[in-house]
């Protein structure tokens, strides 16, 4: 059993190695793989935000795309230079109080998170009293309502036209940096008394309440924190793509993140990280299925749309056959890691 001090040393060492890897990748990756890599980092953050609410607290929410939208739009509207705004809002001019505002990236990013959190808090209050399935549909409803509002408020969000030309702030450092911070934050949160309360609520609400845990307060906290992180993730994504519009934030977006969380393991931070990376890469790799495949001697004509068929089938297969997902509820620990290494090398010694 490792001491706490040893754990920290190993973690710090790993962080340094990680930063080194980021640096190397930033320098050497081509634009296309780098983009996928950055996207993976953003999905890590998003998966963690969903996992906190769904996996750790046991609240089944489906409205995540709405919070992402709030974060993305807030950050975008705050960071766009005034002339870019004028160019975008050619249909109907932007509301006066936003016209000349221009903030640097970090404050805008945080503001996006904060605003998403506020919306999350407002939604949480009425909605978290509901049971599983009703909660799911209610949050789905809110996600859609947010999206519909954004589509109709022409002078605030530019409606269906969306915002384009956003400064491309999201780099490898921002995306994975925030992912790392989120992981760190989540680990600490889960191991704190709050985290234990969340897990208790997930396991058995009645028992948790009997133990003196204020159900409502903790649920709201979990939900709000989740939405803050989702807002930040949304803002990162917006500034990676350089263009956002309400149609991006449909239920399909929430479904993608849900897929990652389920595949990685509901209730496992490590699982979400691994899941995000794998799904992002495989999603791109499976593009081959959409076009013609040359397998040396034969050519299989691909049909567009096969990718999503396979993904949904994958989700169902995991849920039905293998509900735990990749990591189940397990986490990565240095102890476990070294034990595994010993075991593997132990076999070879024979």
């Amino acid at each position, binding site marked *: 059993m490792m001491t706490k001090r040893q754990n920290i040393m190993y973690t710090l060492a790993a962080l340094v190695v990680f930063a080194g890897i980021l640096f190397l990748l930033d320098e050497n990756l081509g634009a296309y793989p780098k983009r*996928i890599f950055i996207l993976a980092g953003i999905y890590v953050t998003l998966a963690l935000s969903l996992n906190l609410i769904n996996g750790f607290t046991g609240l089944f929410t489906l409205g995540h795309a709405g919070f992402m939208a709030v974060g993305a739009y807030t950050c975008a509207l705050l960071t766009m230079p005034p002339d870019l705004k004028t160019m975008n809002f050619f249909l109907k001019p932007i509301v006066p109080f936003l016209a000349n505002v221009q903030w640097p990236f970090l404050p805008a990013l945080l503001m996006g998170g904060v605003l998403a959190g506020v919306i999350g808090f407002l939604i949480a209050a009425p909605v978290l009293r509901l049971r599983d399935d009703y909660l799911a549909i209610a949050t789905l409803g809110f996600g859609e309502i947010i999206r519909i509002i954004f589509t*109709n408020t022409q002078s605030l969000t530019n409606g269906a036209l969306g915002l384009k030309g956003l400064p491309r702030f999201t780099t490898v450092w921002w995306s994975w940096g925030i992912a790392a911070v989120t992981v760190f934050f989540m680990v600490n949160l889960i191991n704190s008394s709050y985290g234990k309360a969340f897990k208790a609520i997930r396991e058995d609400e009645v028992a948790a309440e009997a133990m003196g845990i204020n159900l409502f307060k903790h649920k709201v906290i979990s939900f709000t924190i989740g939405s803050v992180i989702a807002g930040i993730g949304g803002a990162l994504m917006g500034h990676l*793509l*350089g263009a956002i519009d309400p149609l991006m934030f449909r239920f399909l977006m929430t479904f993608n993140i849900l897929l990652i969380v389920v595949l990685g393991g509901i209730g496992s931070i490590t699982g979400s990280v691994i899941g995000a990376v794998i799904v992002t890469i495989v999603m791109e790799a499976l593009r081959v299925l959409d076009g013609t495949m040359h397998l040396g001697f034969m050519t299989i004509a691909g049909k567009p*749309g096969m990718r999503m068929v396979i993904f949904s089938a994958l989700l169902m297969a995991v849920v039905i056959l293998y509900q735990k997902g990749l990591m189940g509820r397990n986490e990565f620990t240095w102890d476990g890691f070294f034990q595994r290494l010993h075991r593997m090398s132990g076999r070879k010694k024979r």
Partner: protein
Amino acid sequence: MKRILALAVCVLIAGVVFAGGEQEQAGSEVIKIGVFEPMTGANAAGGAMEVEGIKLANKLYPEVLGKKVEIVIVDNKSDKVEAANAAARLVDKEKVTAIIGSWGSSFSMAAGSIVKEAKVPTVGASCTNPLVTLGNEYYFRVCFIDPFQGAVMANYAYKEVGARKVAIVQEISNDYSVGLAKFFTDEFKRLTGDDKAIVAVSNYNTGDMDFTAQITNLKSLKPDAIFAPGNYTESALLIKQARELGMDVPFLGGDTWEAPEFLDVGKAAVEGAVFSTFFTTEVPITETSKLFIDEYRKEYGKEPAAVTALGFDAYLVILDAIERAGTTDTVAVRDAIAATKGYPGAAGIISLNETGDAVKNAVIKTVKDQQFSFVTTIVPE
């Protein structure tokens, strides 16, 4: 063990994805032109039509500068994130010389910054939102833009239909629809001198099928005409329901109406509907038009859609530019594209202006005897 196996498989796939790029260098005997279109998702139909034109052009003109031209098609899944990924894949992995795409201005806009950074010239076939080319010297298009199209229809409404009061029904979640409606409104108000010339603006969402409430409301306002610049999927149903509810006013629309499904779903109801578009087979504008129409009929056995002709033209313009530039250097090709003047395309003479948009004629068509029928051509002033 199962998990480790699964992980290994994924790592393998990843390796293929990233390693694959290196092998592409060997094929320098081929000039690649990337195509990113919605092949799946809500806008699959539009993408498929454009790709038909591109493929046909590639078949007829497979070579330039003595090398074979290969088109690389990537699906953007009618999704912005995917559109950006698709464009990134084309410029970085496939190392294309130029790109054609996309049907749907929002996808083109998503890819805009990527192609600009990578300095790969991109030609849109049918995306009409002004924002696509504005501020982006690497994006061009072979079609006119919505401010022109909106004005064309406003003029038609005012002069031919004699309308003085028009109601607008727009697809609020579609940037094309909202934009076109606004340009129509501006021009119509200018022509009538009446600020209240637009009696009502009704909204609907993509995928809506029931418009009875909106139509019933409009019926009581008694407009002279209705401008409904939405996609053909909703528009056909809209007009059908309007006729069923007893509204007989003329319906006016934009280029997205021109699809066989519009006639299929609308049947007798859409008789007399009028819309603006880029192209008509009845009055071939140039020699290229004749060639395109003949070849298309031979290949597919049906009449080509307007966006197919535009896809065809986009390919030709790029080929012509590569030839003029004499190289596949993307910056040089970009400059050659920008200098395109008077090029005879299938959908008209193409001259690109400073923002990279084509100044072209608009064609007005109507539905007569359940077929699309040519009415007149409008020349830009």
